[in-house]
């Protein structure tokens, strides 16, 4: 198992953001993570990549207990992530942003090698022509791609994608889906938080559903979308429920 989440709970003051979440993730899979807004999906990411420690429970990555470690520790062990709200290093160029990923990720490349990797990854992700621009000058869709490029430049074994498809137009979504599949084919294990069910149906091998911090369902995309508990969880959000019905 690449990643093992054991009985993780996280509370912020009185708010129970995660409640006894457990799952295992074998190598080479794409795991989808869905749930209504505020279900605790991003919190789960933050616990997995050690932005903050769980209140109780443990996380094991590549056989090592990483509970209580720091994000830079797990980054060096081969975990990379993107942020739902993009966090470009605005006053650095696009290339330099990606070089940070290559320099400080698992392989710890030197600057010269990192620049080469950055140019490769940027070409792959479709930002090659923007390499010399300041990251702050990109539009939102480009910044999302930059987030992904930075994560990829670290050559991770586990990639956490937090809503990389949100805010993209349909043709961009199609291209991004292809990109993600391509990344998986290179042997990278992926966990992705996504609201676009039809895209997730195409990609995910397995799906977990969170509601109010608890795992309420898990299974293949087909199983999950026909699960009454999942449909009920989404009913408060008619648009998403409709999306679920369409894709089911």
């Amino acid at each position, binding site marked *: 198992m690449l990643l093992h989440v054991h009985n993780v709970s996280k509370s912020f003051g009185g708010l129970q953001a995660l409640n006894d979440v457990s799952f295992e993730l074998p190598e080479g899979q794409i795991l989808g993570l869905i749930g209504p807004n505020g279900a605790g999906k991003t919190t789960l990411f933050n616990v997995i990549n050690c932005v903050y420690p769980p209140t109780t429970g443990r996380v094991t990555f590549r056989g090592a207990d990483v509970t209580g470690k*720091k*994000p830079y520790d797990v980054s060096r062990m081969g975990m990379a992530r993107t*942020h739902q709200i993009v*966090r470009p290093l605005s006053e650095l160029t696009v*290339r*330099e942003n990606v070089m940070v990923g290559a320099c400080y990720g698992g392989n710890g490349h*030197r*600057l010269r090698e990192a620049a080469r990797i950055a140019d490769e990854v940027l070409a792959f992700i479709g930002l090659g022509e923007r390499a010399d621009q300041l990251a702050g000058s990109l539009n939102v869709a480009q910044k999302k791609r930059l987030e992904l490029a930075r994560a990829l430049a670290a050559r991770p074994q586990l990639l956490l994608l937090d809503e990389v498809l949100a805010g993209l137009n349909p043709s961009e979504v199609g291209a991004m889906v292809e990109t993600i599949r391509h990344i998986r*084919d290179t042997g990278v294990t992926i966990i992705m938080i996504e609201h676009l069910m039809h895209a997730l149906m195409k990609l995910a091998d397995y799906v977990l559903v969170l509601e109010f911090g608890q795992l309420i369902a898990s299974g293949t995309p087909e199983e999950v979308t026909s699960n009454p508990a999942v449909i009920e969880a989404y009913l408060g959000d008619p648009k998403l429920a409709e999306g679920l019905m369409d894709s089911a």
Partner: protein
Amino acid sequence: MKDQQQSSVALPLPAGRAAHALGVWRNPGLWLVLAVVGLAGAYPIITNQAAIREAIFTILLSIALASSLNILLGYTGYVSFGHVVFFGLGGYLGMYLLSSGVSLPVAVLAGGMIAGLLAFLLGSAILRLRGAYFALATIGINEAMRTFISNFGPFGGPTGISLNFAVYKPYGGAAQALWLTYYSLLILTLVAIVLSFQIKHSKFGLGLRAIREDEDAAEVMGVVTPRAKTWAYVLSAIIPGMAGVLFFFKNGNIEPLDAFRLHFSIELLVMVMLGGQGTVLGPVLGAAGYQQLRGFLLTNPTFKDYQLVLAGALLLLIVLFIPAGAIGWLRSRFPRLRRVLP
């Protein structure tokens, strides 16, 4: 698996674009600034004019200190209001050693080391603080250090340390010692500029700039932020510590109020901001420009009492209207200049 990944991502790429990281020594901007500072520094030596030497000495000192402060302020994004504490502490240790018969080079090195050590110890503690809290802590440290030294017997307490005239003898007398200090400071200043340039264009510097832009994102990307910040602090402290020894050796005496002048720290901030934080040229230009202005104001009968008032107003105007400073403004206005203005 790694090999597989590499080949799969190796799509057609524009050849030779990686040149970015190369040619640190081939950057024309670096040679330009070294040449200008070197020539300005050589002018009083060639013409043998002590008066001009004094003016240039002040400018060189400011350049060395502002360039060092820029490592922390400009590259890492941490505002230190108390950077003069390293200048003062280095100066004090150096003067103590000089008065006990240690030679100048050893005293200068010791001054740099004690400043670096202080930064290392402080860094582990106060670099956990971010933004305004860190800035406040640095003021506190300067004030605490001044109070401590004022009461510290071996360093002469409130009266400080004065060098005996005999200390200058091995250097060919006081007049020659002044020249020696000047040469040393000129070299130290050039070293400070090269250091600043090397850090900016290194992997370590890339990590620092990532911290400046978004510390949390930098951590997620794998930058070991506590370590990087501490080393940035140490590197920004060493040269001020060494410069402190040279300055007070030339001065002949040191006392707490001279060594730990808070407003000197703030003037250094003005210099870095004026020229452009985060650029190599900025602190050089800012220091030279500010000292010119200061010299003009101090000798002008109307303004001589308002020099610090104007420095404060200048800082306000820069922060409000050109937060990137002169070089930063040029770089963003004319992106082509990025290659020549480091």
